[in-house]
């Protein structure tokens, strides 16, 4: 017995030693990643799509990024600047980044402050159509104090200054490579856009747009022992279910991103034992937006606008609350999301400091309570079982984008609402139309020519300030602003505006959290929307792959340098 133990201990030691011995660059062969939505370009500034942001994150890197818990990590800098360490000035109008010494681009040249300044110039150049311009909002100047120091100046105090050069959305481009590609010339630089030179663990070897990318380990990467893989093949195309199959059943791939597959289908695939599904929870919330304005077609141009007047039925708070009470979020989660979702009553579901439990009454379905609420409010059931008051019927048009999980949810909600005497007509619109925002199309989610509509939204990074500002009165979409506004429910409450304005002027994190929670609670309590599911990002990971640390705050491939093959 003792001997066995000794033997075991020996084996463990040997294994540990073997692992150490393998901590060398390029010893683990080829890493195969599958993105069922194929990557179109490797310049995230020209695309803005999640697939482009993620895939390019293996090559180009930001100054700081978020780790799996949502905390900021110094990446190409020595530390995260704060007021305490003097990196951020007390008036919150400038932030100074100190670059890590000795970082090199993959072509061997030195990474300097000039590159950081150039990245800002590149994205803010007129006519460039830079998709990540919002990251550089409020910046008046970015200057290189010396080769290792970058100073960013804001036009007014910025209480959350970590947006530019932070996270996968704003990586640093090499000035030498992109200097002739600024502004209108940006799309013409195909070679640079398809093969950016970066500081990351991998280098682009070949890029076939909308198909496959081949990467090799960066010989000039700052950590001589990484990455463990010699090359990466990132294949695109197909659909989510077959991508899951390629990792979980056939084992042809190591990692597949965005597994939007019905839980029961995934469960059968998982039985093959070749891999697992891991989910990272960020800030995505699937919600039903409630139209506070009247979408009646008879109103013509004034349809779904503030001028068109209030919604005849949904302007009653009792109706909005009853609709939320009648929904059994557990059932929706079980059928449509499984591990990839959890019921929520918040619109800001994460990070932890912002989570509120004030509205958790909505987690439990309460048909009886909802019925009583409607009875008390004077909505009486007619002969057809549908409630009505003063000739207004509780019959709603419920629209969403075309997607099998969403259609399943629609059917479930329709049934739940019918139990409280609310009728609904279901409609789905192709995602590229629904989210396309073409002002000429009547079917966009911004126009909201329906009573209620369902989709997911979230915010970048960990700070909800900008996101909560979407419900301000002046963000309501209307013909005057070309239907470009993010306040989709057309919610308007001066008290809410006050909280958000205060949030923008508050520097203390604890106080910010208090205000954000207050704003979040107000939105749900007032029924600007009905939160349903806090959605995660599920990915399929092969059993032979180790080191994956699922991250919803940054690129999922953020720590690809640390990934290795199980021996």
């Amino acid at each position, binding site marked *: 017995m003792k001997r066995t133990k000794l033997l075991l201990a020996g084996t463990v030691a040997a294994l540990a030693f073997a692992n150490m011995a393998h901590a060398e660059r390029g010893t683990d062969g080829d890493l195969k990643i599958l993105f069922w939505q194929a990557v179109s*370009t490797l310049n995230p500034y020209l695309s803005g799509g999640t697939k482009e942001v993620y895939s390019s994150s293996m090559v180009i890197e930001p100054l700081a990024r978020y780790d799996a818990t949502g905390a900021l990590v110094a990446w190409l800098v020595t530390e995260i600047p704060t007021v305490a360490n003097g990196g951020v000035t007390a008036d919150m109008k400038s932030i100074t980044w100190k670059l890590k010494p000795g970082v090199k681009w993959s072509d061997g040249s030195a990474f300097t402050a000039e590159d950081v300044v150039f990245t800002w110039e590149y994205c803010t150049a007129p*006519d460039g159509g830079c998709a990540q311009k919002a990251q550089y909002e409020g910046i008046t100047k970015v200057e290189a104090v010396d080769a290792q120091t970058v100073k960013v100046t804001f036009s007014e105090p910025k209480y959350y200054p970590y947006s530019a050069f932070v996270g996968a959305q704003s990586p640093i481009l090499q000035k030498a490579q992109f200097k002739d590609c600024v502004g209108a010339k940006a799309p013409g630089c*195909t070679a640079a*856009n398809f093969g950016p030179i970066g500081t990351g663990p991998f280098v682009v070897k*070949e890029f076939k*747009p909308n198909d496959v990318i081949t990467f090799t380990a960066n010989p000039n990467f700052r950590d001589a022992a990484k990455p463990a893989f010699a090359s990466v093949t990132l294949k695109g*195309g197909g659909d989510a279910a077959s991508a899951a199959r390629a990792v979980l059943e*056939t084992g042809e791939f190591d990692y597949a991103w965005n597994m939007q597959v019905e839980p029961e289908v995934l469960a059968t695939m998982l039985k093959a034992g070749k891999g697992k599904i891991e989910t990272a929870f960020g800030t995505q919330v699937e919600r039903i937006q409630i139209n506070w304005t009247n979408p009646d077609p008879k109103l013509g141009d004034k349809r779904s606008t503030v001028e068109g007047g209030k919604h005849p039925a949904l302007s009653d708070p009792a109706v909005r609350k009853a609709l939320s009470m009648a929904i059994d979020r557990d059932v929706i989660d079980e059928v449509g999301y499984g591990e990839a979702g959890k019921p929520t009553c918040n619109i800001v579901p994460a990070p932890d400091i912002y989570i509120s439990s004030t509205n958790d009454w909505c987690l439990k379905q309460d048909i009886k309570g909802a019925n009583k609420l409607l009875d008390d409010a004077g909505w009486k059931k007619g002969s057809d079982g549908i409630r009505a008051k003063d000739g207004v019927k509780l019959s709603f048009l419920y629209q969403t984008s075309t997607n099998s999980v969403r259609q399943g949810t629609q059917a479930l909600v329709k049934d739940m609402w019918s139990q409280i005497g609310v009728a609904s007509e279901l409609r789905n619109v192709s995602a590229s139309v629904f989210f*396309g925002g073409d002002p000429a199309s009547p079917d966009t989610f911004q126009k909201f020519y329906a009573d209620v509509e369902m989709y997911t939204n979230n915010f970048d990074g960990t700070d909800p300030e900008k996101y909560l500002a979407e419900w301000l009165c002046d963000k309501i979409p209307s013909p005057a602003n070309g239907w470009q506004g993010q306040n989709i429910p057309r919610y308007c409450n001066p008290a809410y505006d006050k909280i958000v304005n205060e949030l923008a002027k508050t520097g203390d994190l604890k106080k910010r959290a208090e205000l954000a929670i207050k704003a979040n609670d107000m939105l749900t309590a007032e029924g600007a929307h009905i939160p349903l599911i806090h959605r995660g990002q599920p990915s399929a990971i092969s059993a032979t792959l180790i080191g994956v640390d699922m991250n919803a705050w940054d690129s999922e491939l953020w720590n690809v340098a640390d990934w290795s093959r199980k021996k």
Partner: protein
Amino acid sequence: MFTYTIRRLMFAVPTLLVISFVIFALLDLAPNDPLGELPLTIPPEVREQIRAAMGLDQPFLIRYLKWLQQFFVNEPLNIFEQITGLTVGTGERMRVLSWATRSPVVDLIVQRLPQTLWVVGMAYVFGILIAIPVGVISAYRQYSVFDQVGTFITMVGYSVPTFFTGVLLIVIFSSWLQWFPSIYDTNLVVDSWANFVEQMRQMFLPVLVLSLYNASQITRFVRASMLDNLSMDYVRTARAKGVREKTVLLVHVLRNSLIPVVTVIALGVPTIFSGAIITEQIFRVNGLGQLLITAVQGADIPLVQTLTFIFAVLIVLFNLIADVLYGILDPRIRYD
């Protein structure tokens, strides 16, 4: 025949211009938007600027004329420059750029063409090679067991969609038996026997799916055409003269029966270029069909417009070829 061909070619020019305009107008009217796939976290002002950078803020007619110039003048000049190495003018001109990849559309097409020709073209050739003997035997031995089984298989092959057979074959051969890969490796370079075998393995399933479909379709034509001819007077005469049965069937009947079949095959050639959209998508073959479907989904209008227009040119061209072939094969038909 020559004047006829010239006349038809001249007539094709206005036809194609009208087609290009119709495609452009239809795509413009379609409600999907190139920004539809972007995350909602990108604010509206930035979206406006992206739209402007794509040239979407210009009026419809200007955009159409620009495309015409890019496609008919700039792109051919560019190809000319690449072939000859000469530079015309400054050598800097606006090419047709895809909105999703921001790279020249023609380069994307050139990159995708070989895979489509290999997989879809091979399936077409196999389809023909299987269809002709099966069709001939089926017709000659009408209502025999061979004919019944053949008819059953071709009916199934013709009516069951490729998105079903494709997935079915993946489940059987890739998931259960693990004989063939379910994902096409587009980086595979064939430079040794081992690679060649690998290439054959990965082509097997998509080619099988498409061959079944093509063979089913063509077999029905061959069989029907053979049956028509077998009952003709000249067949009876040949047999009465004492011509050997093999000669009657393979020389007299088959040759005459193939006239309509050749036309059908010629008309089907453009579909090779348009790729097998569904099959390519299922097996992740990076062909033209997959390029088209991703472009349609992402509302990459310049790419959809250019691809569709190239298919239109091929269809017009092969219609002409089919007509000319018909005249050559069948001396009874005269165009002049």
